[in-house]
């Protein structure tokens, strides 16, 4: 799948309130430079926000940092969001259902992964040592991709 050029942009941020918003602005800037549509840019922003929130809320990482890598290809962007926490077993993550949550009065949280899966084209979760990486990919839609589209990156 590694077609064409690839450029990697790395950032590391502390797990502090609303830092996910700052990270999403980086994602937005890179997505705009890559000529994603405005709707796709917005979806990427939201997915990155959710991935960062997941890391902040569930990783229990001792260094309280999130490590991101934005990989820009000719036809897609791949975003890796990593923490160095205790990790989790994806098989144990229950798929949330609003109607069931309302009927049972159960906890109304737990939507992050579901949103990421629906907003991005491909999502992988990899165990790290330590921690977890969530790798999200968004394809540039055909009418917006062109050779050298991200010359500015």
């Amino acid at each position, binding site marked *: 799948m590694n077609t064409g050029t690839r450029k990697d942009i790395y950032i590391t941020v502390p797990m502090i309130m609303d830092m996910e918003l700052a990270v999403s602005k980086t994602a937005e800037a890179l997505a705009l430079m890559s000529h994603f549509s405005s709707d796709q840019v917005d*979806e990427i922003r939201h997915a990155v926000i959710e991935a960062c929130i997941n890391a902040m809320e569930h990783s229990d990482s001792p260094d309280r940092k999130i490590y991101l890598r934005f990989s820009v290809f000719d036809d897609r962007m791949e975003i890796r969001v990593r923490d160095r926490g205790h990790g989790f077993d994806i098989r144990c993550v229950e798929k949330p259902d609003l109607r069931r949550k309302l009927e049972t009065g159960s906890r*109304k949280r737990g*939507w*992050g992964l579901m949103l990421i899966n629906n*907003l991005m084209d491909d999502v992988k979760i990899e165990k790290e040592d330590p921690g977890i990486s969530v790798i999200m990919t968004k394809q540039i839609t055909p009418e917006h991709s062109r050779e050298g589209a991200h010359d500015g990156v």
Partner: protein
Amino acid sequence: MTEFKVNVQKFNRFAVIRSHGYINNLGGEEIARECRNIMDTGLNELILNLQESTIVNSIGISILIEIIEEILHKNGRLAFSNLTPTVAKTFKIMGLLQFAELFETEQTAIQAFNGNSTS
């Protein structure tokens, strides 16, 4: 970062709540607080205009779900208006639109709540 704000406009049978800024847990709580204040006055029909809140995270949405639950419990009515495509998609994914209406603009929502809409 821009401070989160909520603006409320009351009508006879319903109220419009307009939020400004990022809806995270704090923004969600502030919206929830205003909704509860309004419902305490007996108004159980709410329009939530998110034109100035273009980013909503899942924690904020979870709090909106709690509001939906309270409104349903009181046989009320909730509508969203002026959502960006991604926020609308997110709400749809999370199932909120099963329990709340969606209008493109605040004006069309108000018309519907006033009983003037054919939709």
